[in-house]
């Protein structure tokens, strides 16, 4: 981690990681990275708002914590998806193995959805109370976080397609809705 606490990754390497012909990292990791970027935007806006908003420092601290949670989830998701993909290729003996691997791949996605929903909620607060000139960035963060939560929830639904009545799907949908509501609040906050 450098001075900005942003993971020490070259942007070209990051983008290249998503364009090589491998199955992972995929959508889940992209959602985690997106939520991390959104949390970084919140930090920036909150820091810029410290002169006019008493709780700005608290928002910065929360954004840092959420950034730290999001970033490792990209790797966790990529690893879980690789294992699930191996299972789909028949590298495990039977369908039970496949079901287990797909279900296992859901856990990082749920964490991504949950953390992204929190990022969206924090972004909404910052968009409503932060410095006016930077509220647009906070709203952008909320929309990015919503996209991350929605993407993760969608992938949860796909992974759980081979199981029935899994409560984790309903949970993912709740997180998606919460993120969407937060993004609406952020967009309504105005400049």
């Amino acid at each position: 981690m450098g001075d900005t606490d942003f993971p020490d990754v070259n942007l070209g390497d990051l983008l290249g990681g998503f364009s090589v012909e491998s199955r992972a990292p995929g959508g889940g990791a992209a959602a985690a990275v997106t939520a991390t970027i959104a949390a970084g935007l919140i930090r920036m806006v909150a820091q810029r708002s410290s002169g006019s908003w008493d709780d700005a420092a608290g928002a910065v601290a929360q954004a840092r914590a959420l950034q730290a949670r999001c970033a490792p989830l990209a790797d966790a998701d990529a690893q879980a998806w690789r294992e699930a993909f191996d299972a789909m290729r028949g590298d495990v003996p039977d369908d039970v193995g496949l079901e287990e691997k797909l279900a296992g791949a859901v856990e990082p996605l749920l964490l991504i959805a949950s953390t992204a929903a929190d990022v969206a909620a924090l972004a909404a607060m910052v968009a409503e109370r932060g410095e006016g000139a930077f509220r647009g960035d906070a709203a952008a963060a909320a929309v990015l976080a919503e996209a991350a939560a929605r993407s993760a929830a969608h992938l949860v639904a796909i992974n759980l397609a081979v199981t029935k009545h899994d409560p984790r799907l309903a949970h993912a949908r709740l997180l998606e809705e919460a993120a969407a509501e937060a993004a609406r609040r952020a967009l309504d906050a105005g400049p």
Partner: protein
Amino acid sequence: MLFAVTVERISDAVLVRRCRGGDPEAWAQLVERFSRYVYAIAVQGYRLSSHDAEDAFQEVFTRVYDRLDSLRSDAAFRPWIAQLTRRVCLDRLRVETREEPVGQVELPGASDVLPELDEAFTVHEALARLPKQCQEVLDRFFACDESYRTIGAALQLPAGTVASRISRCLDKLRAELEGRNPPSGGSGE
């Protein structure tokens, strides 16, 4: 949980004074208050094994019990026990490396780690002086990595208000660290 502190908070100086007076409850509180600090110095500062750290822990508190009367200022208990712990850890390392002088046993990373431990302990102490609701919400978010939704459900708060609650509590924590907070009764926010 890193920040879970539930005992009534009294100052170190008062606690030490009670210990000198032979109050067994005060001794229990003193050990509870500083046990993690001592253990962290042993494990993180001097990289003792858990077994050696346990032994060091026992030795430190035995020395505290025997030498408490030699402490010049009751308010300076923390640096005093930190110094005691460093000496005990160095003694243990010296026994392991026998021929090396004590001065050469000090680990390269110890000088970096010890100030961090001191800072962490300072924050821990300040947190313990906050209202219980603030302690809990900060502990859940920063130490346990709980989501706003989980915290809201556990504390019966609307999920949309958890972030602002955390911010307010962080502001109180900062004020506590800077000595700006009025004395707290330990309840309410």
